[in-house]
């Protein structure tokens, strides 16, 4: 899969720019605050359905303008093309896929696959469970059909139930449990399946990246048990009943996939607490790269690799390893300086210079 072209109109610092990408390595080169990350942000919108930097669409619109527009052209396997566009206004979004209007941003999902690695990716291990659930949600939304919708319905039911808890109106609480468990179980089952699958890949990747025998173990942790959908749903319903008093006391729902975690261990110790900086970096990289295999196996396409300002975070050896690893895929890298190592030794590099929202390409 390749991104051929990206158009940005009044998107953050960009007035209007069109960027053509090469099918190999693309280097986005520019000073700080010149608009490099913005390009990756724009691409992610189409893969994930939302910005990874903000939940507020309004922030994406160029200061002083009423709306922003993005358009992307993708080439998929067998010379198929996909054209997606989104218009972001103060009242919402207008979306089109191949010229057909779509109602919701989740309908762009499944057309573009990305795997990204940014300095914030390290939060995956360092921060709390919320960041790890976010990692799962973002990755799964793009490659598992229906996951984003299930998640949205779940959040909606949860809001209704939590509202009752906050208002201390607890007598009609139970009528939300069935639906919450229905969507909750579906999310848990999908997350378990997904986690198990990437765990194997991540473990192998960690060993080869770290060149050590430490091993990385990744496992989805949930309070609800069961092997089948029906069992998990049943379990969640009884957990909701059992935690009713706690929920009432706290004023929110304390069981369900919104409280689960992805446990990450290095040599049987919790990575968040015990891993070194280098181990954290390698583990996160292994986890992100494990998505490549997953996407290739399940979606039949190679993802586009986005690396935001990360080469500087890795030592020379890892830089080279990483670049070799993504060699066969379209890769877009942002950096502030012409690197002395790594990419300048590679062939077919396209350098895209960015200067305060203005693009100029070379090479």
């Amino acid at each position, binding site marked *: 899969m390749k991104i051929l072209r990206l158009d940005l109109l009044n998107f953050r610092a960009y007035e209007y720019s069109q960027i053509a990408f090469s099918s190999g390595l693309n280097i986005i080169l520019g000073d700080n605050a010149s608009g490099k990350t913005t390009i990756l942000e724009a691409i992610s919108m189409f893969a994930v359905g939302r910005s990874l930097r903000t939940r507020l669409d309004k922030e994406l619109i160029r200061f002083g303008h009423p709306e922003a527009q993005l358009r992307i052209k993708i080439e998929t396997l067998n010379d198929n093309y996909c054209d997606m566009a989104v218009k972001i206004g103060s*009242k919402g979004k207008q979306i089109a896929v191949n010229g057909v209007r779509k109602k919701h941003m989740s309908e762009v999902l499944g057309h573009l696959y990305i795997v990204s690695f940014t300095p914030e990716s390290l939060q995956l291990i360092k921060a709390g469970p919320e960041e790890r659930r976010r990692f799962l949600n973002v990755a799964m939304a793009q490659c598992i*059909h*229906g996951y984003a*919708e*299930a998640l949205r*319905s779940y959040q*909606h*039911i949860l*809001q*209704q*139930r939590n*509202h*009752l808890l906050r*208002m201390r*109106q607890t007598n*009609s609480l*139970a*009528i*939300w449990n*069935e*639906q919450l468990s229905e969507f909750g179980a579906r999310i848990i089952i999908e997350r378990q399946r997904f986690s198990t699958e990437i765990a194997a890949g991540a473990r192998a990747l960690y060993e080869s990246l770290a060149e050590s025998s430490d091993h990385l173990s990744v496992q989805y942790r949930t309070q609800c048990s069961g092997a089948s959908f029906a069992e998990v749903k049943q379990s969640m319903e009884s957990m909701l009943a059992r935690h009713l008093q706690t929920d009432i006391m706290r004023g929110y729902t304390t069981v369900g996939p919104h409280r689960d975690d992805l446990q990450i261990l290095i040599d049987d110790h919790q990575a968040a607490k015990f891993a070194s900086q280098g181990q954290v970096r390698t583990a996160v990289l292994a986890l992100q790269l494990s998505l490549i295999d997953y996407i290739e196996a399940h979606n039949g396409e190679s993802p586009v690799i986005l690396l935001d300002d990360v080469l500087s975070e890795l030592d020379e050896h890892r830089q080279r390893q990483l670049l070799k690893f993504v060699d066969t895929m379209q890769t877009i890298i942002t950096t502030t300086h012409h690197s002395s190592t790594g990419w300048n030794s590679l062939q077919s590099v396209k350098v895209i210079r960015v200067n305060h929202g203005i693009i100029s390409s070379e090479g």
Partner: protein
Amino acid sequence: MNGFPEPIVILIEQFGRLPGIGPKSAQRLAFHIISLPEDQVETLIGALRQVKHGLTLCEQCCAVTDVSPCAVCGDPIRDRGAICVVQDTKDVIALERMRTYQGLYHVLGGAISPIDGVGPDQLHLRELFVRMADDHLKEVILATNSTIEGEATAQYIARLAHGFDGLAVTRIAHGLPVGGDLEYADEMTLARAFEFRRPL
């Protein structure tokens, strides 16, 4: 909207409060009204007043009607053994178009939604439970929307209806649209259609 004379501002505001009308449409409608001849405006005002004053809720089923009991409740031929519970009067009209249902209706006037401040007490549920106590009644058909709120409302009624002996509680099936292709159906619809499959 600075600069417009006060009466126009008020009119634009009022139009803007209607569902599906944004600020631009509200402004267009307001200026359209201004351009109309006086008698046409009077007719419109009359029609608005008429729907508010000339309409009432059916004393039995709570549907919006001009006579109470409404045409369905007042029809002696209808089967008093079944009540179909819907969210809005327009659902009654949709179901009546089907022409096959012979029972009665009950209109809730919405669905339970805590976020919007709609609880059981804001709906016509008390009236429904009074009707459920009637011995002639054999079946309550829950036909609330297949949204999250519609489902929760159906759950609520089902739980309470089980307390009435000899009363069957059913939920209308949600599945594939007639003439719709399987491959275009979303997962939830497909899952539901599977769950409610029947022997042939």
